């Protein structure tokens, strides 16, 4: 599993090269037709046994959310904006790095902060310790990307994994494991490590148009909100909707804002998990989207399913993922590849 290297690599949307550098050597001897397409996505083919005439695309995105430098203040503080969805309320106090330059995100000091109840990105700055504007703008440039400073950790003897960008380096790691597996699948696997998912599913669109698969599966990291809500009243009759739970196994999407999983594809995934005795769960919220959004409408249409890892605290420097969920997701996607036939795509 390459999750450590993948998680610690910085690949904010539009500049995924460091992630590519981790992936390319890992799949070099495991797949054919390895290409970097004009958008920057990696596509590769792992030939099947020829038993079943199916071209199955499996996609995971390389990019992560982050920040982009937009300007400099006279005192050397740096303005920035977000790339991809970030809750600005988590930002104050976080360490970031802009290439080799280290900084910290600061908010208005507490004694001056009399009228700001909400954290707004426009009132946050990055402090890189520069003495003035010239020094700051000499070290970093407008347009540079700032990433969360985060170290990958394995907690509790490797039971729990912690790191940044599990959305979707977790998926990238699964996809690498799939290609590295010694099995030859009965179908052709068309792997796509895509770019620019977080800002509009863009790399996947081009990759799908080019690969023109018969069916696609997306490997994702998704939000597990299986936490008590400290704001909820004790006797509230309504329940918190967790979206998904850690430890519940791979998460299957029913629908989200980018696609509706066709009922027979969802049924195939559920059936596969049940037959193989792999725990799984359904995603209980429809928020968000995945590369499936642009893949399923590519060319003449591609039946598409989504298999996700339940992660707490995605889009922060410290996402949590259970090793067991990772292993179960890997078992599921392998079972899918071993089991799928052209008949499963027809309703």
């Amino acid at each position, binding site marked *: 599993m390459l999750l450590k290297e993948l998680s610690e690599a910085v690949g904010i949307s539009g500049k995924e090269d460091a992630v590519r550098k981790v992936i390319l050597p890992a799949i070099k001897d495991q797949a054919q037709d390895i290409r970097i397409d004009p958008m920057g996505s990696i596509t590769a083919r792992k030939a099947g046994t020829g038993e079943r005439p199916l071209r199955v695309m499996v996609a995971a995105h390389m990019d992560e959310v982050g920040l982009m430098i937009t300007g400099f203040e006279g005192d050397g503080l740096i303005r920035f904006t977000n790339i991809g969805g970030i809750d600005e309320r988590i930002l104050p106090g976080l360490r970031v790095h802009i290439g080799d330059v280290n900084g910290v995100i600061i908010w208005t000091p507490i004694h001056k902060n009399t009228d700001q109840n909400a954290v707004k990105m426009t009132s946050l700055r990055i402090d890189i310790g520069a003495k003035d504007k010239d020094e700051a703008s000499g070290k970093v440039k407008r347009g540079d990307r700032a990433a969360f400073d985060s170290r990958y950790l394995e907690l509790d003897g490797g039971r729990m994994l912690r790191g940044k960008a599990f959305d979707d380096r977790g998926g990238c790691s699964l996809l690498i494991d799939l290609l590295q597996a010694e099995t030859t699948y009965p179908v052709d696997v068309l792997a796509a490590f895509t770019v620019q998912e977080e800002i509009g599913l863009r790399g996947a669109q081009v990759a799908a148009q080019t690969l023109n698969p018969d069916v696609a599966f997306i490997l994702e990291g998704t939000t597990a909100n299986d936490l008590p809500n400290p704001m909820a009243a004790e006797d509230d009759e*309504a*329940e918190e909707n967790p979206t998904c739970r850690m430890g519940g196994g791979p998460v299957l999407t029913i629908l989200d804002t980018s696609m509706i999983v066709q009922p027979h594809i969802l049924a195939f995934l559920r059936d596969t998990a049940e037959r193989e005795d792999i725990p799984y769960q359904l995603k*209980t*919220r*429809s928020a968000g989207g995945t590369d499936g959004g642009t893949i*399923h*409408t590519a*060319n003449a*249409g591609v039946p598409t399913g989504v298999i996700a890892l339940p992660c707490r605290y995605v889009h922060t420097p410290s996402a949590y993922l259970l090793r067991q969920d990772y292993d179960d997701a890997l078992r599921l996607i392998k079972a899918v590849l071993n089991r799928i036939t052209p008949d499963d795509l027809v309703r």
Partner: protein
Amino acid sequence: MVEDRNDETMTKRIPAKTKRNRPLLPVQADSLVDLLRTLTSAWGPSGFEYLVRDLIRAQVEAYADEIIVDPLGNLICRVGQGGKKVMVAAHMDEIGVMVTFVEKKTGYRRFAPVGGLMNTALLGSRVRFEDGTIGTLCMPDYFHGARTAAPAFDAYYIDVSDGAEDDDSTAQPGDAGVFWTPLEQRGSRVIAKSLDDRVGCAVAIETMRRLNKQTPNEVYFVFTVQEEVGIRGARTAAYNVAPDVAIALDVTVTGDMIHVEKNGLVLGGGAAIKLQDVGLIVPPAVRDWMIERALADGVPYQRELLSLGTTDSAAIQTARSGVPSGAISIPCRYVHTTSETVDLNDVESCIRLLTGLLANEITL
């Protein structure tokens, strides 16, 4: 509280007062209403169009030269061969709900909207699941809360309780439902759920029947999926068909209600030839082709400028290297409620216009 009446008496038509002028009805009104009743009583939320597809397929099989179902589930029916390739698109899907979460303590179902639901039109609505289960949409403390403001979707839940202790067998996460009311006819007006876009499907079906395979063009009648969630099926079908020109058939919002934007469209005013909406500017050549045909055939028509929403043509126009695309819209009141209302004369006008366009050679 009204007296308890059974279904039969509910649907029995009350005779119109004799002194009133009878509404003008198109010649084939009865069969048109039957077709609309069949289509609107079918169950087909976006992504789950297979029942509607089977129904339509049975209706059109005799009038098509070739029929395929594409990977996303679009029903593509070819009529004629060799001439200009025309794609006619009407979407099979309808708005609805999808259960995402079952509340353990209460059994209430939380759901995601499928398509553009009106959150002002949800309270007390009924939805029907594929297995026939009826659910009621409600919100917490509706008796006080809903009087002043419509809450967001998150606040609503679906009640599928049947009085048994355990009602966990049905309406599970992943199960979709559609709004559920029977079709009613009031003179030349038809009131039903999902006229958006089953009336478009009806226009396509009836046009296929009238053409009876006779056309100098190569026409692809495409009954599309997933229009309501982002014109998704039309996009892939257009790639597949690669047409020279396309026409979408869909409902459009009239401006003849109180306190609405007066967009010039009236119910009963004729087929609406689309000029522009938020996703599509109809090329003048396509627009004029339609208007000239309407004038030549004496079909009542109106010009449609829609300031909200779009239809399948918006996706078709950008397929491959581009497709000149227009739309014939069926004027409709109360779109995306359970009481969508169309006029049978407008439906007939749309059928006549479309039949005329397709029966003649196309030079754009």
